[in-house]
């Protein structure tokens, strides 16, 4: 995967291609990342953690927690929920570390996939709760989604992602953002946009493939 290659090849502050720029900045904000020796990738650390090495896992935490928390926050838009789900995700990462297989994707992809999944689980579970029990609705937190989507993208100072999202057609862009950051199913996106389900499915597929090619994620 390009992401792994990035960590091994990129000299700090000297990105050599757009993908490297993104990856070099994506984990900025992890306070103790300097503790990770440059030759030790997060994949290596997670493999050590799989053997019960708690210190290695502390370094995994430092490398991945910002991405995990940011992903949860983007979907949940509430710091307390995001912190709770981040904790669940990091503990699940620890418990299931023995199943990590770097040939099937990087540790970062695994962690962020898990983070998004658990954040979406919580959103949908909360929505189901609401359907059952209107009494606990706190409507003051409701905001039109489109405002939120703008805010989320506004926090993306990752120029490359923004550039690649900008390379999508407006309808692809809208569908991908509503699905990923909005935590919606494609059927919900179709509902929201009053657009046929098959059309939205196609927009999501074509949009994500175009994004993949733009970001240089290897096949």
């Amino acid at each position, binding site marked *: 995967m390009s992401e792994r290659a990035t960590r091994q090849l990129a000299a700090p502050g000297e990105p050599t291609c757009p993908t490297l720029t993104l990856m070099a900045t994506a984990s900025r904000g992890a306070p103790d990342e300097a503790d990770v020796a440059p030759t030790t990738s997060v994949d290596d650390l997670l493999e050590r953690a799989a053997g019960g090495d708690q210190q290695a896992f502390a370094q995994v935490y430092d490398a991945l927690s910002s991405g995990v928390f*940011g992903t949860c926050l983007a979907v949940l838009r509430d710091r307390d929920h995001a912190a709770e789900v981040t904790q669940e995700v990091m503990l699940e990462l620890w418990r299931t570390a*023995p199943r990590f297989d770097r040939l099937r994707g990087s540790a970062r992809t695994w962690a962020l996939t898990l983070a*998004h999944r658990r954040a979406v689980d919580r959103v949908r579970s909360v929505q189901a709760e609401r359907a059952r029990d209107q009494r606990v609705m706190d409507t003051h937190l409701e905001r039109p989604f489109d405002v939120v989507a703008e805010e989320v993208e506004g926090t*993306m100072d990752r120029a490359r992602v923004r550039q690649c999202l900008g390379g999508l057609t407006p309808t692809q862009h809208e569908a991908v953002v509503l699905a990923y950051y909005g935590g919606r199913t494609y059927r919900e996106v179709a509902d929201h946009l009053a657009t046929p*389900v098959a059309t939205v*499915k196609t927009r999501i*597929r074509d949009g994500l493939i175009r994004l993949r090619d733009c970001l240089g*994620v290897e096949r």
Partner: protein
Amino acid sequence: MTTPDPPDGTSDPRDLLAAYALDAVDDLDRRRVEDLVAADPDAARELETLRATAAVLGAATSAAPPPELRRSVLDRISEERQVTAPAPVVGERGTPRRRPRRTFWVAVAAAALVAAAVPSVLAWRQTQEVHRVQAQQQEVVDLLADPHAQVRRADVPGGGTVVGVLSRDRALFTASGLQEPGAGKVYQLWVVRDGVPVPDAVMAAGARIVRATPDDYVVLTHRYAAGDSLAVTVEPTGGSLKPTTSPIVVLSPV
């Protein structure tokens, strides 16, 4: 509302790989994609690249978590056992299915909701509490409706009344009008099986206590089995593993 695709699984799950990578599928679609990926290495590779792409979208929103979370996580891993078995589900590496899947129709109902904003953690916990109480109430209703249940009642010397509803696998115990147990003391409920008292609830507010006021208690116990008796003693605060005083009252089935 637009008309959803027919839920008959006729569309090609390959078209759903991207939506799956974005977690934008309902449970029925998720299963179809996982079946595809388990059987088709090309689809599995395609999904990997799409997942990595989705992860980049997540990484782009990186934000530092609350600093205290680090300590909390690292403290807890020392108590968390790691798995040993390989991943059971090919399409969902490392994340065994841990919760029952919602049915398709529930997913459809959820899909009808447009709001994506979530209530606060406090409201979330309140909801969980509401469901816990509802489940408990349902259990009490079921118990009262059990044709095998026996109702036993006794007066407590010194004041108060206790009532037990005794079924085959649980019992509901209520006490009302009891005197204060005294400073540093509590009432404790016991399930007595073959003459041996098994400690049950200390009658102060707690998870299994339906209601607890100083002279009024309702306890639902699952330790009870057909033929057991219920007994109450006065114990030091926090309760005891063995009774330290004689029971003030005993309820036995006929």
